[in-house]
């Protein structure tokens, strides 16, 4: 559709379908289509690739500032990263990937197994920690997740580790009591470092639609987010909900997950993202 051919009603319709197909949602898809329609009314010679350029421009405008800032880790020792999100989004796997990344950079890392609820959650993160030779702090099934966070923080402090990554249990944003549990983790961390957690990232499954935006709103309200990770972008979904999230909450997207292996984590790049769509 984004070729050298001249646009017509049929191809504009195809364009609209592609925009919705990327999970941009009504607001962003409409904005891009309106801009393309306006340009087409002015110039009937408009081509597919011109439309692509308009789309890319709108997206870059909307996603301005959406990348992680330079040197974002910060001065705290340990810098505490908390991964939260709904069930199955990829938090545990991402915890492992992040731990590995920092270890490769020569930083001391401690992982905290704060999912004390789900079946074999401890075994899962322990398998990763053993595989990657990362220090893990965990407790027994049904232990208090905030207590594990506390123990993990103490261990990181004792180890002089630079990074503490806390994996938490999946929870739907519609469950008030589970959102309260998150707040308890925050309170406990703040008893030891009032600036912690320094990074609170929502891990969002890139194959989901507009509900990701509501997830982000509710998690932000309950816990205070500082950023996002979008996973499973190695699938066919374009993760367009991240645009809706960024429009509303202006939270940078730190990383994208591109697979199940330890290396499958990339810093989010607006350029790469728009090229993949409008290339």
């Amino acid at each position, binding site marked *: 559709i984004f070729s050298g051919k001249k646009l017509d009603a049929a191809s504009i319709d195809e364009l*609209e*379908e592609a925009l*919705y*197909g*990327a*999970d941009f*949602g*009504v607001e962003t898809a409409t904005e891009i289509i309106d801009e393309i329609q306006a340009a087409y009314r002015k110039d009937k010679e408009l081509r597919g690739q011109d439309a692509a350029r308009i789309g890319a421009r709108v997206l870059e405008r909307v996603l301005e500032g959406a990348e992680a800032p330079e040197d974002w880790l910060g001065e705290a020792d340990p810098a505490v990263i908390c991964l939260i999100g*709904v*069930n*199955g*989004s*990829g938090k545990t796997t991402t915890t492992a990937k992040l731990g590995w990344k920092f270890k490769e950079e020569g930083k001391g890392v401690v992982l905290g197994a704060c999912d004390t*609820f*789900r*079946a*074999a959650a401890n*075994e*899962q993160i*322990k*398998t*990763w920690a053993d*595989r990657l030779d990362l220090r893990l702090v965990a407790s027994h099934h049904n232990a208090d997740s905030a207590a594990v966070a506390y123990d993990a923080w103490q261990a990181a402090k004792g180890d002089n580790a630079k990074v503490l990554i806390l994996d938490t249990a999946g929870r*739907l*944003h*519609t*469950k008030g009591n589970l959102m309260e549990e998150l707040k308890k983790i925050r309170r406990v961390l703040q008893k030891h470092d009032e600036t912690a957690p320094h990074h609170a990232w929502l891990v969002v*499954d890139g*194959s*989901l*639609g*507009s*509900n*990701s935006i*509501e997830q982000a709103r509710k998690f932000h309200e309950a816990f205070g987010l500082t950023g996002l990770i979008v996973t*499973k972008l*190695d*699938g*066919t*979904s374009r993760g*367009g*909900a991240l645009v809706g999230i960024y429009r509303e909450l202006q939270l940078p997207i730190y990383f994208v997950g591109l697979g*199940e292996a330890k290396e499958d984590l990339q810093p989010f790049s607006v350029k790469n993202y728009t090229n993949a769509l409008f290339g």
Partner: protein
Amino acid sequence: SLTDRMGQALRNLRGVGKLTEDNMAEALKEVRTALLSADVHFKVARQFVEDVRQAAMGQEVLKSVTPGQQIIKIINDELAKLLGEGTTGLADKKPLRIMMVGLHGSGKTTTSAKLAKRLMKDGYKPALIACDVYRPAAIDQLETLAKQIEVPCYTDRTSQDVPKIGRTGWDWAKEQERNLIIFDTAGRLQIDEDLIGEIKKLKDKIVPDEVLLVADSALGQEAVNVAKHFHEAVNLTGIVLTKLDGDARGGAALSMKAITGVPIKFMGTGEKTDDFDIFHPDRMAQRILG
């Protein structure tokens, strides 16, 4: 709700004696926007609105003094009908073999346990077979759930040969005189040729009576391609929608059903093994329309 949003469009219909293409078009535009914002696939939303338009231009609505209300009723009925068509029960046989497939994190392992628990109440003697050899502690997870619901679970931590594990698990379940055998598989992308090949080979070995796609109800527009590819690969007999205890509108359900025709059989409504229900098309229709 859709009724609220259509309020303005429909108010214009109320005083109108006859339904016309024009006042109909405005109301239908609202329906299309409602469906798109519920993550219904672009083409499916278009087709659905067209089907409603055809039905609404029919005789009863034209004669009705409250065409607006008639249209809302048509929309709800059409949607519930589309969602609910097809055999929503499981194959009525013993022994019954069920293969669970789907994308990563959709809820396959948890749903395998839920299904076993539910069918035990219907008199089945289930066995769970752990065919996910990739995800760290996947076998531990299924084993833990199996213990919770007191169902025997076949595991093999020494093999990476999934079709062989499935076949051996089936034999083992038969020896244990289990008559409901549920095979949990690893999450996989529908575009992963090797892993799609694996479930094809597994299917050949275990000859399942049911192949269920376990799908997150919050899926976006790619739900159609996901369902289509899995269906073409292993011939799905049903869909299970999970995480309906969230607030996703669930338009993916309509998309998957409309494009593949595969019936939606169950819904996951929470993290516990009891949080499982047969699919209710009328409730889903309400949810999608918002």
